[in-house]
């Protein structure tokens, strides 16, 4: 790309040909006021706030829509520019209601800031102002459309970034309105980003409506705990109460966006029914007690059951969203007592590779590369609802590349699919195998005898060939497996095929995982066959066995197997029949109080420090943003004390950072064992029964989300995104 030399406010700058003045100015830290321009959205140039004075032009021009030219001399502070800015500001305020005192945006409002910074200090307008009817956009976004200045950022966001156009600008001139025209709610899973985009108070967050002013809020960085991307967030809190969660810019993970799930799940912490004191169930009734008593009780029960059954009859289920530190401590603690039954994978059916599995994370390429894929093959997943922000990236790539899917279910995509194959769920692996066969034929020099044998007899169709062609021809291509794949009874087969296809077509491959810390939990050793970082461990029962076979005692940490596991009904029955269930939980509602014997209150997300390892294997540590309510304590502290009481050694940690550092050291010292399985897995038909089950809904994934009121009121909450298969139902 060519370069041109320009001058802004006397500063000599070099810029790429074709870039807009405002981009160059931003780069050089020269601020030009703007409302409609946003670096992640297309240029609309309809607010006219960014007028600058270009010496060669007779009138002031909008900086966001004027490309630079060689020798341009631009002034942002000349009389002409300032005149233009003042006029625009006056114009924008003509119809703006006198709402500042009751407006949630007050104090962080771009209109206020620019009015003070660039506008006049007194109005000349005395006529009546227009009024626009508010729209009902659902339980997440509250509207005050009279305040709208028609920058159309929200419209462009829907159109360009999400790909679902829900909002539009109807009418013309004074009658222009932003809205859905027909009364309807906004249902996209990333809808609330328009709250951040809105420069005025027209779109504000409903759950935190009127709660706090921007200047009262303290900001603490954290990591969102609901999907495997590990979106970076800032927790805004006041006097120890979380008021809202907003995205923290991280170009390599969440860019500037945040899914609604990550944004509003905090409600569970502030409004959910929190467990504030340890409780012991005595004769069927709950009694509040102190930590000492509760811990002693739990320890005695654990010792009793583990002692009697030699560890066979006690099982530990770790929640998907446990931090790395918690998982590490809990597995260390359980293995220290001589029990080996520990697992976090309550949604996995295929344990065939357990004894070989290493600790690799889902992706072997950076998440950011999804943006630039020429070909993306999605295998069985509902990426929009499982990892909303990853879907935005895939959508970005479809601007020039092609997305394809092999999905047994009705997928809702916010991008166009070039090819779509819809096999029956139980034949997913078989269908995918055809792709491998096609790939093998296209790349005969890359295959070995083993694969040759494996694909023997598998035929493929034109469609499979096209998919393979796309993967091969694309300069960058990837195979992306959805969460459902890991729930499939033939997960390992599909994984293996994906790896082989990727190798043959020179693509990247990765699988999405349930929860935010699947990779971390695995690294920490919260699986039955290996301790931290693939260390050797005596094999124990896996989650399926623990939940379906029925044990005498359970330790459940930060999860509700009766809701989120694949064997929910069996799990519930077995938990109810168990002699003792020790629950480390933040909430006391739900069935946990029904089946548990002792409840230990632990801090929720954002109230504890720890580390999440995302799907790329990126370690992201965070510290507590707010204190835990009542007597609840960070789980790592609870586990540390439990470890001491159980007389297991090595539980003298003083901070979660200390645990993390120890783990980091261990990781460096352990060489990630190459996945040693040489022989390819066997391809056989899975039972229809086992593949039928619905996946968890968008807002059902973990205990926190399930208790977030506003999210539960959305239309997406009631529907299971992957529900019906056209073929099977």
């Amino acid at each position: 790309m060519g370069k041109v030399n320009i001058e802004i406010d006397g500063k000599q700058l070099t810029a790429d040909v074709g870039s807009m003045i405002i981009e160059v100015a931003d780069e050089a830290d020269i601020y030009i006021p703007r409302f409609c321009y946003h670096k992640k959205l297309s240029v609309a140039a309809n607010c006219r706030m960014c007028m600058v004075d270009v010496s060669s032009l007779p009138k002031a021009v909008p900086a966001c829509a004027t490309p630079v030219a060689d020798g341009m001399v631009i002034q942002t502070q000349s009389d002409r520019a300032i005149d233009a800015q003042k006029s625009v500001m006056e114009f924008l305020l003509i119809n703006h209601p006198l709402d500042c005192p009751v407006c949630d945006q007050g104090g962080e409002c771009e209109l206020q800031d620019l009015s003070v910074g660039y506008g006049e200090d007194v109005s000349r307008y005395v006529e009546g102002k227009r009024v626009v009817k508010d729209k009902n956009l659902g339980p997440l976004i509250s509207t005050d459309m009279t305040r709208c200045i028609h920058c159309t950022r929200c419209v462009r966001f829907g159109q360009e970034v999400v790909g679902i156009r829900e909002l539009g600008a109807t009418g013309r001139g004074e009658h222009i309105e932003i809205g859905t025209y027909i009364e309807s709610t906004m249902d996209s899973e990333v809808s609330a980003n328009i709250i951040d985009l809105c420069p005025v108070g027209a779109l504000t967050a409903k759950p935190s409506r009127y709660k706090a002013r921007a200047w009262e809020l303290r900001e603490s960085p954290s990591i969102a705990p609901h999907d495997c991307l590990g979106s970076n967030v800032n927790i805004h809190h006041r006097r120890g109460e979380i008021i809202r969660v907003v995205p923290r810019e991280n170009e390599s993970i969440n860019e500037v966006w945040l899914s609604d799930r990550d944004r509003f799940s905090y409600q569970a912490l502030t409004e959910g029914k929190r467990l504030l004191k340890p409780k012991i169930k005595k004769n069927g009734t709950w009694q509040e007690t102190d930590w000492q008593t509760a811990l002693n009780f739990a320890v005695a029960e654990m010792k009793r059951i583990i002692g009697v059954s030699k560890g066979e009859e006690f099982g530990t289920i770790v929640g998907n969203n446990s931090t790395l530190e918690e998982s590490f401590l809990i597995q260390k603690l359980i293995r220290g007592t001589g029990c080996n039954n520990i697992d976090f994978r309550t949604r996995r059916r295929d344990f065939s590779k357990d004894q070989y599995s290493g600790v690799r994370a889902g992706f072997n390429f950076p998440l950011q590369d999804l943006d630039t894929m020429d070909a993306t093959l999605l295998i069985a997943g509902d990426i929009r609802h499982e990892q909303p922000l990853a879907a935005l990236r895939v959508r970005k790539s479809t601007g020039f590349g092609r997305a394809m899917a092999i999905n047994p279910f009705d997928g809702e995509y916010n991008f166009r699919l070039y090819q779509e194959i819809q096999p029956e769920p139980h034949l997913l692996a078989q269908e995918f195998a055809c792709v491998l066969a096609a790939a093998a034929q296209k790349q005969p020099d890359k295959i070995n005898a083993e694969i040759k044998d494996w694909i023997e007899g598998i035929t493929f169709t034109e469609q499979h060939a096209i998919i393979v062609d796309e993967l091969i021809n694309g300069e960058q291509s990837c195979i992306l497996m959805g969460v459902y794949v890991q729930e499939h009874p033939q997960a390992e087969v599909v994984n293996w095929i994906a790896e082989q296809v990727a190798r043959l077509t020179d693509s990247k491959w990765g699988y999405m995982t349930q929860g935010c810390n699947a990779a971390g939990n695995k690294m920490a050793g919260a699986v039955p066959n290996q301790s931290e970082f693939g260390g050797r461990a005596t094999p124990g029962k896996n989650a399926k066995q623990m939940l379906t076979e029925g044990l005498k005692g359970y330790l459940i940490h930060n999860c509700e197997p009766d809701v989120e596991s694949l064997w929910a009904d069996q799990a519930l029955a077995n938990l109810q029949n168990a002699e003792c269930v020790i629950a480390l939980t933040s909430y006391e509602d739900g069935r946990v109080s029904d089946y548990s014997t002792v409840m230990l209150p632990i801090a929720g997300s954002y109230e504890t420090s720890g580390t999440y390892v995302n799907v790329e294997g990126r370690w992201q540590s965070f510290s507590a943003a707010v204190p835990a309510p009542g007597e609840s304590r960070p789980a790592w502290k609870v586990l540390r004390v439990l470890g001491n009481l159980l007389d297991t050694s090595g539980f003298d940690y003083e901070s979660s950072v200390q645990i993390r550092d120890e783990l980091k050291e261990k990781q460096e010292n352990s060489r990630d064992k190459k996945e040693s399985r040489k022989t390819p897995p066997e391809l056989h038909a899975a039972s229809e029964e086992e593949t039928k089950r619905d996946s968890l809904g968008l807002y059902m994934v973990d205990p926190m989300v399930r208790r977030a009121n506003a999210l539960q009121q959305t239309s997406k909450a009631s529907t299971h995104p992957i529900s019906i298969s056209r073929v099977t139902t």
Partner: protein
Amino acid sequence: MTDLSYDKSLHLKELIPQSEIDEIDCWIKKYPNDRKRPPIMPALKVVQENNGNYLTTEMMQAVAEYLDVPHVAVYEVATFYSMFNLDKMGRHVLSVCTNLSCSLRGADKVVEHLQNRLNIKLGETTKDGLFSIKEVECMAACGGAPMLEVDKIYHENLTEEKIDQILSEMAAKDLPTQEDK
């Protein structure tokens, strides 16, 4: 997006005759395949003419479905252009520009005069169904402000006399037709 009022079964083909559909298809063909929005305007025009000079929400939705564009894209077009009517209108729609130039030249007086003459308010239709008055944004005739448009004809440099003259001409034109009925 859930359109609560939208009935999925409603298809454009059920709303207008095949000949009109063909006309829309003809318009669609004029634009590149991946450009779906340009035909919205001609399509709406066809549908409106078929429906007696106004559009219903269902029709706009049906057009959106037919053209495979978001519903709101059609609403935007239909609400932007003054030639699309969203309510049942009189035989003659008097579109008075009240934008800047016209306002400076006395558009509010034009509106007031029309309202008094026809005894209706802006956006209403006379009882006999002959006239509707509509407030519109700039129609690019600022040189002859104040102006109004009726039956696709621009009337510029309006005065009260001129308005009266236009109205009586219109009424006169229509008289025979009314008698025919």
